[in-house]
C-alpha cells in the first residue's frame, strides 16, 4: 500500500518516515488540499495509519496531546469518546483537512471521508456529486456501479435536496467508495439518521467494508454501533487514546452475544455511563 507521510515541511526529506514524534512548530500549514503543503514521503509500511506524538491545539489548549495510533490495512476501528474529546479532530487530521498539527502522521494516499451530514452539492445531480473529482476513464460507469452498490441506482439523476436523509447519506458513502480508498474515514455517518435507517446504514457499511476491505476509522458516540461494526474500539480521553478494546465476536454480530454485552457494559463504563450489568 502506498502510504505517505503528512508532516510539517520543516522535516528533513530523507525519504524515511519519521514516526518518532519530534514536535515542530507548524507555521501556517492550513491548506486543506491533500496534495499541498505536506512533505510527501512515499514508503512501504505494514500499517495503513501510523500516528506518533500527535498534538493539536486550539487557542493554546491541546485537544490532542501526544496521541499514538496504528491501524492495520483492512482493519475496522471505532473511535469512541465523550463529545469534545477530540475524536472528530483526529479524524480531520487523518483526512488531511486539518494540518495545523505537530507530530508525525502517515496515511494512505487514497482516502475518503463521509461526514455526519451528507455534504452533497445541492446544485449537482446525485451521480455528478459522486463523480466529483473522479479521474480516469469511464467515471460515469464507476459512479453508477457505486450507486448501485449502495442501493441508489433509482436516484442517479435526482437532485440531492429531494433525497431522504438515508438516501443522501448513502450517496455520500457512494461518493467515498467510488474512489476505492485504502482508508475510509467515517465521522458519525449514522448519527443524524432515524433508528431504523441507522440500522440499515450500519448493515450497509459492514457489507461494503467486507467487500472492499479498506481500513476504516469510524468516529461514533454509539457504543452499539462500534460493537456491531468494528474490530477494535478505541476510547479517547484527555487527548490520547486511553483504551484499546479488541472485539473478537464473530460476524455478523448479534447484540445479545454475551461477549458483546460484556464489552458494551465495559465500554459504557469507560465512557462514564455505568450500566446495572457492570456495577
Amino acid at each position: 500500500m502506498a502510504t505517505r507521510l503528512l508532516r510539517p515541511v520543516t522535516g528533513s526529506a530523507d525519504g524515511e518516515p519519521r514516526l518518532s514524534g519530534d514536535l515542530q512548530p507548524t507555521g501556517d500549514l492550513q491548506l486543506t488540499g491533500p496534495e499541498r503543503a505536506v512533505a510527501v514521503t512515499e514508503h512501504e509500511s505494514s500499517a495503513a495509519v501510523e500516528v506518533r506524538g500527535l498534538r493539536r491545539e486550539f487557542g493554546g489548549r491541546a485537544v490532542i496531546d501526544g496521541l499514538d495510533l496504528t491501524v492495520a490495512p483492512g482493519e475496522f476501528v471505532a473511535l469512541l469518546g465523550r463529545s469534545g474529546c477530540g475524536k472528530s479532530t483526529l479524524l480531520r487530521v487523518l483526512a488531511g483537512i486539518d494540518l495545523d498539527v505537530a507530530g508525525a502522521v502517515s496515511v494512505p494516499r487514497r482516502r475518503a471521508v463521509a461526514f455526519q451530514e451528507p455534504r452533497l452539492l445541492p446544485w449537482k445531480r446525485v451521480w455528478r456529486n459522486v463523480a466529483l473529482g473522479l479521474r480516469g476513464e469511464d467515471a460515469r460507469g464507476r459512479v453508477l456501479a457505486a450507486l448501485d452498490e449502495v442501493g441508489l441506482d433509482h436516484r442517479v439523476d435526482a437532485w440531492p435536496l429531494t433525497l431522504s436523509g438515508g438516501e443522501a447519506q448513502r450517496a455520500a458513502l457512494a461518493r467515498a467508495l467510488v474512489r476505492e480508498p485504502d482508508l475510509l474515514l467515517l465521522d458519525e455517518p449514522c448519527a443524524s439518521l432515524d433508528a431504523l435507517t441507522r440500522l440499515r446504514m450500519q448493515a450497509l457499511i459492514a457489507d461494503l467494508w467486507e467487500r472492499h476491505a479498506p481500513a476504516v476509522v469510524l468516529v461514533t458516540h454509539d457504543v452499539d454501533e462500534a460493537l456491531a461494526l468494528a474490530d477494535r474500539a478505541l476510547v479517547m480521553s484527555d487527548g490520547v487514546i486511553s483504551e484499546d478494546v479488541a472485539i473478537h465476536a464473530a460476524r455478523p454480530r448479534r447484540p445479545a452475544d454475551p461477549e458483546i454485552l460484556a464489552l458494551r457494559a465495559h465500554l459504557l463504563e469507560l465512557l462514564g455511563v455505568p450500566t446495572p450489568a457492570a456495577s
Partner: protein
Amino acid sequence: MPASESTALAVTEPPSSPPAPPAAGAEATVAPRTVAPRTSAPAVAVGAADAPSGAPAGAGPSRRRPEIETLRAAGGGRRRRPVPRWLRRASGPVLLLALWQLGSSTGFISAQTLTSPATVVTTAWDMIKDGSLVDGLLVSLRRVAYGLLFGGIAGLVLAVISGLFRAGEDLVDAPMQMLRTLPFLGLIPLLIIWFGIGETSKIVLVSLGVAFPIYLNTYAAIRDVDGRLVEAAGTLGLRRLELVRHVILPGALPGMLVGLRYSLGVAWLALVIAEQVNADKGLGYLMMNAREFLQTDVITVCLIVYSLLGLATDMLVRLLEKGALSWRRGFSGQ
C-alpha cells in the same frame, strides 16, 4: 386508526359543537379516550388503583373532558371554480386604467396634464408606424446592453477577485465599498468632460450603475458559500480551479442573480438620466423633444415603453433563475 377516522368523519360532517351527537360522535370520542389515560397516567396510578387500564372516559374524578374541535380539510367543503390567478392579478391595473380613462373623458384630467389612455394607444401606433419609436428603442437598448456587458463583467471580475483571495479583498473591497457610497448619477458632469456627450459617456454611466450591485451581491454570495461543502469537496481531491467552478461559483449563483436583477433596475434608471441630460437620439431624446411641444401623449408612451422594458428584463432574469436554480427547494410562498 382512530385519529384518521375521526378527521375523515369531521370533513364529511357539518361543524358539530363540542358535545358530539350520538351517532357520529361515538367514534369521534374514541380519539380523546385513547389519549386521556396517557396524559393523566400518574394520577391514575396513585389515586385510582381499582380502575385498571382501559377505564371509560370520564370515570375518574380527575379526568377532564377535553374540548373537541372539528378539523376541516382545507378547501374540502367549498370547492368553487377558482378565478384564474392571472385574471385576479390583472384586475387592479385594469381598474386603474379605467379610472384614468374616465377622468380624461369627463375632463377631470386635462389633456395637457395627461392624455387619455386611448390617445396614448393611437400615439403609440403612430410612432411605431413612422419608425421613431423603434429607432429610439433600439438606440436605448443598445446603450443598456453595452452598459450591462461592461459593468457586469467589471463587477463580476472584481467580486471574484475579492471573494476568492484575501489579498484581493484587501486590495479591491475597500475602494469598492467607498466608491459605492458615491451617487453615481452625480458623475454626469465629469463623464461629459471625460468622454464628451456621445455614446461613451452614456454607456459608462450605465456601466457604473450596473457594476456595484453585481459586485456587492456576488462578493457576499461567494463569501456565503457553505464552508462545509468546500471542505468536503476538498477531500475529494478537487483542484483549485475545479473547486471554484463546481462548488464556489454555483453556490454563489443565487446571490449573483439577485445582483443582476437589481442592476437591471439601476441600468434603466441610469439610461433615463443619461438620455435626458444630453442626447440626440433614443427614448429619452424623444421625451425631451416632446416636452418642447407639450406632447404629453408622446412622453407617456415613452414612459410606458421604459417600464415595459424594465418588466421584460426582470422577467428574463426570473426565467434565468428558474432554469439555473431548479435544484433549489426554497420557501415559495403560501
